[in-house]
C-alpha cells in the first residue's frame, strides 16, 4: 500500500462513459481507499457489526466515492453496478493468486465497460481477471506515494491528516537522482 491517487473530475468521468450503457465500477479497498480517506472522507474503514455480533472493518472512503459516482452516472441515464474487489486488510487487486483470479472472474458483474477506482497496477489486475472482452478504464490518476497515519477509534480507522504525508513521484525522482 502507499500509492497516492487522485480521482478524475466528474465531467471527465462522465465523458469517458459516453457511448456505454452498463457501467461497472470496481473499487480497490487498499491504496485507493486510503487516498480517498486522506483527500475527502477521513475514515479509512468503518467498524461494522453483523447479525452474529461479529465486528469487521469495511473500507469506507472508497465505498462513499463509488456511491457518489454511481449517482452521477445514473442521473446521466447509465445502468451502474458496483463492487469493492477486496475486503479491507485482506488483499489488493494488484496482488492476486490463481484462486483469487478464478473466484473474482465469477463475481465481477457484467457490463459494457469497467471503471477502475484503483491505481494502474490494480487496473492491470482487473484486466487480468476479466480478460480482453471488456474495456477497463482507470478513473484515478497516480500522483505519488502516501504515508498514511491513522488512529484506531471505536467507529473505525480515522486518518490523521496532519501526520500523513504525500511524496509526489517527481520529488521521488529527484531523491533518486541525488542518491
Amino acid at each position, binding site marked *: 500500500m502507499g500509492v497516492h491517487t487522485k480521482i478524475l473530475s466528474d465531467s*471527465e468521468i462522465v465523458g*469517458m462513459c459516453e457511448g456505454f450503457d452498463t457501467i461497472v465500477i470496481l473499487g480497490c479497498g487498499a491504496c485507493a481507499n486510503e487516498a480517498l480517506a486522506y483527500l475527502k472522507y477521513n475514515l479509512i474503514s468503518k467498524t461494522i457489526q453483523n447479525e452474529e455480533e461479529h465486528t469487521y472493518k469495511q473500507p469506507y472512503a472508497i465505498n462513499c466515492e463509488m456511491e457518489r459516482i454511481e449517482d452521477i452516472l445514473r442521473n446521466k441515464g447509465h445502468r451502474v453496478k458496483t463492487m469493492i474487489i477486496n475486503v479491507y486488510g485482506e488483499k*489488493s487487486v*494488484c496482488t492476486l493468486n490463481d484462486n483469487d483470479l478464478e473466484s473474482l472472474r465469477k463475481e465481477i458483474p457484467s457490463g459494457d465497460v469497467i471503471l477502475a477506482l484503483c491505481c494502474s497496477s490494480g487496473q492491470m489486475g482487473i484486466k487480468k481477471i476479466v480478460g480482453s472482452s471488456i*474495456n477497463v478504464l*482507470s478513473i484515478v490518476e497516480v500522483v505519488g*506515494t502516501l504515508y498514511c*497515519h491513522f*488512529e484506531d477509534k471505536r467507529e473505525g480507522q480515522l486518518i490523521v491528516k496532519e501526520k500523513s504525508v504525500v*511524496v509526489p513521484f517527481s520529488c521521488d525522482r529527484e531523491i533518486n537522482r541525488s542518491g
Partner: protein
Amino acid sequence: MPVYLKPIERDSIIEMTKEFHSILIVACPGCPNESLAYLRDIPLAKKITISKNHTKIECYAINQEVRRLSEIFQEQGLSVEIEVLNEKYLCLLSGDDCETLRERLPHTDAIFVLGCPAAAEGIKKISGVSSYILTGMRTVALFFYSYKYDPKSGDKYITEGQFAKIQKREEMIMNKSMSSSNLQMLAFHITTVCENRCEYCYMGDIERNEHSPYSKIKKVMKELAYQNVKNLLLGGGNPCMYPHLNKVIELGYDLGFIIDIISNTLEFKDRSILKYIGGFDATILGPTYLEHDKIARRKGAYKHLVFNIKKLVDDGYKIGIVLNTTPQTYDKLFKTVKNIIEIEDILPNGIRYVMIQRVIPKGRASSTLKYGLKRDHIEPLFADIEKIEQVYGLKIVFEDPFPVCLIEKKYHKYLSPCVWGFTKGSINWNGDVSRCGADPRFRLGNIFEKPLNEIWEQSSILLSFRSTDWMPSACKTCSLLEKCRCGCSLSNITESDHEPDIFCSYSPSCSEMHIKNNFHKEKEIRR
C-alpha cells in the same frame, strides 16, 4: 502493495553511509519484499525452522537483502542493527504502532530504510526529525503480480509480474485505450558483426565489420538501468561474436536486468556466464543443413548452431527456436522442427517455444518483396504451425502479427497484435531507439538526448502508431481490431514509419498490389 522498487547500487550505498559509525536497517515487508522477489526471482515468503517444534513464515526476499546490506556495512566497519517488520507496512501506521516501534528501535547514527518514500516518511514519524534517514531503494514503476502458495513447503512465490505505466491524466481520458504502452523489454543490438550473411538480414550491409566499443554498451546499459528497463534481449548481428559479451552479461546482471539472447550460433566461449542469461533463442533458417547454410550463405552454419543448442540443452537450458517464414520456408516449418527433434535429438522438453517471424523488407531485403509471404502461403503456414503444436506439444509464439480477419478462426488462438511500440522496443549501442526490433532506422530519438520514458511516451511516431489514425476506416471499427491492429505495419516496402499490413485488403495501396483477385473470397471469410 504495487510500488516497484529497485535497490540502489553497492557503490552508492557505500558513498551514502561512509560518514557514519552505526546504522539501523529498517525493512518494510510490503512492496520492497515483493519487488526484490520479482527482481531476483526468489520466494516472497519461506517457512523457516527456528527449533524442533517451531517454524515461522519469513518475508524471504527482504530478509535476503537485509543480510546482503548488513555484510556490506560490516565490511565498512559500521555497527549494524536490524529491524525487519513482519506485518506492519511502514506507509500505513497507527499512532500506537509508531509508539511501539519508537520504543523498540535502537539508536544509531543513521537509519537505512528499505522501502518506498512513503515508508521513509513513516520512519520519520517514528524516529523523529533529528534522525538521519537514508533511502535504500528507488521507485521505478507500479506493478501487478500474481503468486502461488505452496502449502507443503510454506513458500510463496511470484508467478507473473507486469509493470504498470503511471498514466497521465490526459492519456486516461483520451485513450479509451486498447493496450498498455508500458515498455517492458528492449532488443539491444550490441554488434552488427555476424558470420552468417543472410540475404534478408534487416541490419543491411553498412558497418558490418567492426564491433561496437564496450564503453558505449556500458553507457547505454547504465542509462537503461537508470531509466527502469527490466528486460534486455541481446541481439545483433550475432551477439555471441561480441568480444566483450561476458562483461555485458555480468554488468546486466549487476544492474538487475533480465537478459535474454538471440543468436545464429549460440556459441559461448565462457560458459560461466550462462547462469546469468534468462533465455536463449536460436534462428533456424531451414529444415536441413543444405537449406539453412544456403540462406545463411555459410557452410557449416547449421551444424555449428545445432551442436551448440544440444550443448545448452544438455546443460539443462531451454532454447527458443525461431523460424523465419518466407516463400522458401512457409510449408517447411513442421519439417524443420521435426528434424531438430527427431534427427538432431533435441527433445521437445529442451525447447522453450517455437517463435514465428515474418521477414520485413528492410536492410538487405529492402526494396524487394522476394522474402515476404504471399497470400496463398498463409493457409499452409498455419496448418504447419498447428501440426507442430499438436505433434510435439510445443508452445507457439507469433512475434509478427497477421491481419486476423484473413486467418481461419481455428488459428486465431496463435495470434496477438504487434507489441513493438507498446511493451517492446529496440535500441542500438549508440542509444538510438527504434519501435520495432527489425527496423534498423532507429528514428525515435537518442536516450542521451532525451530520457527513454519521454521518448516512449511522447514520440510522435509512437503516438501515431498507438492510435488508429493510420488504419483503414474499416479496420478502425472492426471487432477484431484489438487482436489485430492491422497486422505487421512494416510488411510492405515503405519509407513511412508504419502502414497497414501488406495483406490488409482495406488498405488502398495493398489491395492494388496483392489481393484484388481474392477480395470476394476474403469478404466471404469475414462474413
